[in-house]
């Protein structure tokens, strides 16, 4: 019992100690090197001053990120399912997907604004492209990660493809899909924020750019902070969903 308690204490105290250390380091840097980092209290005060400003812009970003996440993950799931069933699709799609994965998507964000205009579409596309690859990889791995002996049981009953897919592959792939979703939701948020660096006057990315334009360091770091915290919350939600759904 005592070792468990000390474990819990440790897992709270240890990161706190590190965070306090990092905060002290931050404050020292903020005091010593002007214009590099703002003092933490300035960030806190800025957030306290106008929470609505941040929350409104955060809402815009989260909307783009979640829509992009849904689209990217949806496409990845469909393609993953198709690839598992038709081998030639794998050879066709994987090189393109790989190429997409190694492309700095941020660099093509401006081109997307040119193509789709000043609305949420380019940011949603960037979020979707960012979210696509991790889920694709994980869905392919997951849909294949079936117990071959279980597959034999299905085959011996003359189960058709649909039955094998929905009663065997899909449930078996869920732990992998959630691992992919965790990567994808992070990528979608970062993608949405970064794509808002151009072609948007709303959203956390735009707030960051505005802050750079006017050298408003507290605003910049407050925005980065909101983006990071939100991603953590989204990660938590994915984890919660996993715990509710994957109970085995």
């Amino acid at each position: 019992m005592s070792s468990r308690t000390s474990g819990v204490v440790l897992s709270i105290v240890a990161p706190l100690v590190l965070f306090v250390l990092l905060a002290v380091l931050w404050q020292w840097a903020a005091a010593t090197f002007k214009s590099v980092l703002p003092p933490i209290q300035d960030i806190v005060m800025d957030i306290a001053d106008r929470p609505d400003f941040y929350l409104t812009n955060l809402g815009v970003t989260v909307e783009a990120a979640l829509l992009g996440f849904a689209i990217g993950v949806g496409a990845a799931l469909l393609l993953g399912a198709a690839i598992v069933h038709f081998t030639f699709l794998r050879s066709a799609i994987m090189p393109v997907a790989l190429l997409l994965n190694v492309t700095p998507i941020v660099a093509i964000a401006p081109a997307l604004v040119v193509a789709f205009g000043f609305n949420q579409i380019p940011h949603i596309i960037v979020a979707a492209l960012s979210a696509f690859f991790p889920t694709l990889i994980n869905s392919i791995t997951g849909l294949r990660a079936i117990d071959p002996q279980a597959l034999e049981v299905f085959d011996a009953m003359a189960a058709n493809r649909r039955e094998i897919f929905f009663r065997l592959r899909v449930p078996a792939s869920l732990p992998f899909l959630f691992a992919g979703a965790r990567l994808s939701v992070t990528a979608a948020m970062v993608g949405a924020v970064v794509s808002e660096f151009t072609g948007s006057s709303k959203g956390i990315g735009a707030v960051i750019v505005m802050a750079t334009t006017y050298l408003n360091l507290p605003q910049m770091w407050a925005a980065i902070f909101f983006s990071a915290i939100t991603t953590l919350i989204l990660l938590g939600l994915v984890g919660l969903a996993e715990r509710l759904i994957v109970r085995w």
Partner: protein
Amino acid sequence: MAPATATSTIELTGVGRTYTRGKKTVQALTGVDLTIRQGEFITLFGPSGCGKSTLLRLIAGLDTQTTGDISVFGTTPKQASGRKDIAWIPQSSALLPWLDIKRNASLSSVINKRADRSGATTRKPEDAVDILNEIGLADFLESRPEQLSGGMRQRASIARGFAQGAPLMLMDEPFSALDELTRDTLRLRLLELWDRHKKTIVFVTHSAQEAVLLSDRVVVMSPRPGRIRQVVDIDFPRPRSWELVETPEFVAKVAEVKQILWSAWEGDE
């Protein structure tokens, strides 16, 4: 329970299976002639790589022979499996971890429902819960597989096979992953079920003792290339129990079966 088809036997004539991997070919099975009678408990016995699993998979329609013919109840294995006339019980329990034991055991009721609706079936699905009761899992209907011991999981897997109601059950070393004591109990449980449900069972094992204890006939096989060495009749009266194992006749029969194996096969494992 008697199958409605013209023939209730499984006939294998000149069956062979060759695997090609790149430029290498492996003759996994060659010249297998065998007739399995209705209601029989027949065991395939032999060392690793002698083609036991290959033969069982051919009968199940999970794989196709390269030479020879296989007839299961008068049709091809694939047609028989299309009628859900073949229940497959693998080595690992291969239960679905996301389903409770009851749903696992009644898996066949949600798969290939067309076979259930077509009148021509020789098969009548049985109530999974009844069989789980018979096999001693009455208290674990709602449990998930991970909450059960290895032996209990294997029972659930066997229950799943019986619940399918297929006249033919194929079992590929269903007890080999279990510890010996668990195995001992499950062997007798299986004999009880078989006795009550009158299935034809083709059973694969590495254990001469298990083969002799369970079977009407033991098919002794040898590898490179995989083939049938001899078919040994086992005439001990049924129902069989642990007392039988201690009789000199039983010990002699086990020795005889092993002897066929050793004489056929010069490798050292």
